[in-house]
């Protein structure tokens, strides 16, 4: 069963009753197979609704910017906790106001991969369900969860939350792998090739802003995309509008994106946003020797000035 361990339920209930938090954001069973849905628990007795399993894909940290100033508890996977670090670095949350249940996460299921394996459309996975921690079933077919987790999860090197008040699950050994492997080859492309690649990657974007809204670090009260004075780009999703939005959003995340992948999973069009963001993260790592999401006390490179900062781009 995916219900949380009794001890964890009791701790969360205790936080609610004592007023340490006024709401706990977690996951509960939803209407769609293999996809949990976020739940906002306010009454201690409702902790029994909370679940944890490989269907818990949303980054719940995205909801924190809607609850500014409030005392909030939430479940965080390894990737999600790095977003909390990001918000702490930028002064958007106060650590004392948070209660984090950190989950050591082996990866969440990508329904598109399951659908591909079963040769059905992703909306037709009705009978699929998780069968314990290792396998999932659909129509008599069984497959290992490990084979159908997101690419990001497969390449993850931060399975265990960096921050938490309570840890759940067995600690997972992080592989000594290169999380930027999938974008290193962009380095060898010419400018024209890179542009063609970028054009191709974002061509199906229809400016729904699910990526921005799911991103825990996109918390501006008025996003550049919503400004009407000036109107930076049209809403009608022509290629130039899409390219403008994706470029600017990506650059606004320089030194801030923690690589949680919430944007890529939220995208209804299957745009490979991870490739754009990870390329920029690689650039920041190489130019400024910095990776967002590790140290709450570190200052993001674009908010600091050092004499020895890379300035090779200055003409």
């Amino acid at each position, binding site marked *: 069963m995916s219900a949380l361990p009794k001890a964890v339920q009791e701790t969360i209930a205790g936080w609610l009753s004592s007023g340490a938090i006024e709401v706990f954001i977690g996951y509960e069973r939803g*209407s769609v197979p293999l996809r949990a849905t*976020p739940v906002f628990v306010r009454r201690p007795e409702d902790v029994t609704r909370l679940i944890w399993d490989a269907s818990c894909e949303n980054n719940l940290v995205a909801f924190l910017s809607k609850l500014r100033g409030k005392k909030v508890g939430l479940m965080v996977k390894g990737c999600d906790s790095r977003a909390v670090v990001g918000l702490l670095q930028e002064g958007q949350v106060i650590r004392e106001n948070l209660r984090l249940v950190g989950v050591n996460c082996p990866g969440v299921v990508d329904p598109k991969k399951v*659908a591909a394996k079963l040769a059905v*459309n992703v*909306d037709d996975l009705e009978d699929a369900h998780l069968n314990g921690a290792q396998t999932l079933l659909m129509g008599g077919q069984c497959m290992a969860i490990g084979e159908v987790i997101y690419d990001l999860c497969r390449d993850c090197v931060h399975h265990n939350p960096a921050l938490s008040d309570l840890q759940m699950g067995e600690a997972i050994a992080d592989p000594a792998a290169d999380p930027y492997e999938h974008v290193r080859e962009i380095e060898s492309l010419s400018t024209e090739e890179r542009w063609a690649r970028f054009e191709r990657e974002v061509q199906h974007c229809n400016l729904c*802003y*699910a990526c921005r809204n799911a991103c825990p670090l996109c918390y501006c009260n008025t996003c550049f995309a*919503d400004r009407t004075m000036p109107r930076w780009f049209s*809403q009608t*999703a022509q290629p130039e509008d899409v390219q403008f939005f994706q470029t600017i959003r990506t650059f606004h995340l320089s030194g801030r994106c923690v690589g949680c992948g919430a944007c890529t999973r939220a995208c209804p069009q299957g745009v490979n946003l991870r490739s754009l963001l990870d390329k920029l993260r690689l650039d920041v790592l190489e130019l400024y020797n910095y990776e967002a999401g590790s140290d709450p006390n570190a200052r993001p490179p674009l908010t600091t000035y050092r004499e020895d900062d890379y300035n090779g781009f200055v003409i």
Partner: protein
Amino acid sequence: MIAKERLGAMLSDLMRRYRLIAPVQHAGELRFSEVASPEEVVLDYRNTAKAPKATFFPQTECMMRFEQQLDRFNELRGVPLDTTPTLLFGVRPCDARSFLLLDKIFLGQQYLDPYYQARRENTLVVSLACDHPRQTCFCHAFESGPYDRTGTDILLRDGGDVYLVEAVSERGAELLAGLALPLADGAHRVKAAEIEAQALARLGEVEPVKGIEAMLALLFDSPIWAEVSEKCLACGTCTYVCPECHCFNIEDRLLAHGGERVRGWDSCMYPTFTQHASGHNPRPDQGARWRQRTMHKFEYLPRNAALYGCVGCGRCILSCPVRLDIRHVLRRVRTAYAEKSAAKVTA
């Protein structure tokens, strides 16, 4: 009726007279698209990811162009309307039914929408009865069902190795007369009835929607709206995949020497949807916006157009990044109404 193996030939024939729009597989997603050859058509499917409304109401549409003139006023140019004879083939009954509301919006008001009208008048709808409703389907909450004939010109029903072909409208009958298809025999009719019964058996329990408008009328100030919208990301995906959502924005795109006026889909889920030029926003939070979405579909439209703004296709549930389920919203409306009524009685 027509043997399934002869459908391709029939479609080839029809493609000499009509542009054919049908479900095609495109990079892991099933969508309605113009087909170049009948082999592309997929009919063994549940439903497409997005509704076929783009056939009449495209996501982006140029309404007019204007060209800068140096010595006089800018020149306005209309755009040619799309009057290509079209066959919209293989839509589900829920989608066919959805066109009724779109017709009321774009054709039934004081101002006729010529862009929509041109496409709609020149399109024949051939729907395919739904033999496998999904868990997220709730067409039967609207006194409809997977074999509903509302809104279509011709209905196809699965009869095993054939499709039974039934004219529903006059235009459908005209087209059918020209095809000279054999009448369906008893055995195939029985098979079709069997398949229909199996389809109906798949439908889950759902509360009928009728009457919800009266409940909503009393819940404008209810705290439920903040509650049901809490996990909403305001991404607008629900609006984009919905067969009934029809709100649009008009923008002028300035180009080198002139520009164009473009209509594009908009969503009430976006914060700027009702933002005034003054900066004031009468729907300042997602609760207010979800209240609007629900009331528009389930109270305002029934009162003003005698039609709900939802056909129960369930696409919004499947495509929502947080899996917000509109059926749960309706359920909450009902419990809130019951609570409110009980409170009135005891007060």
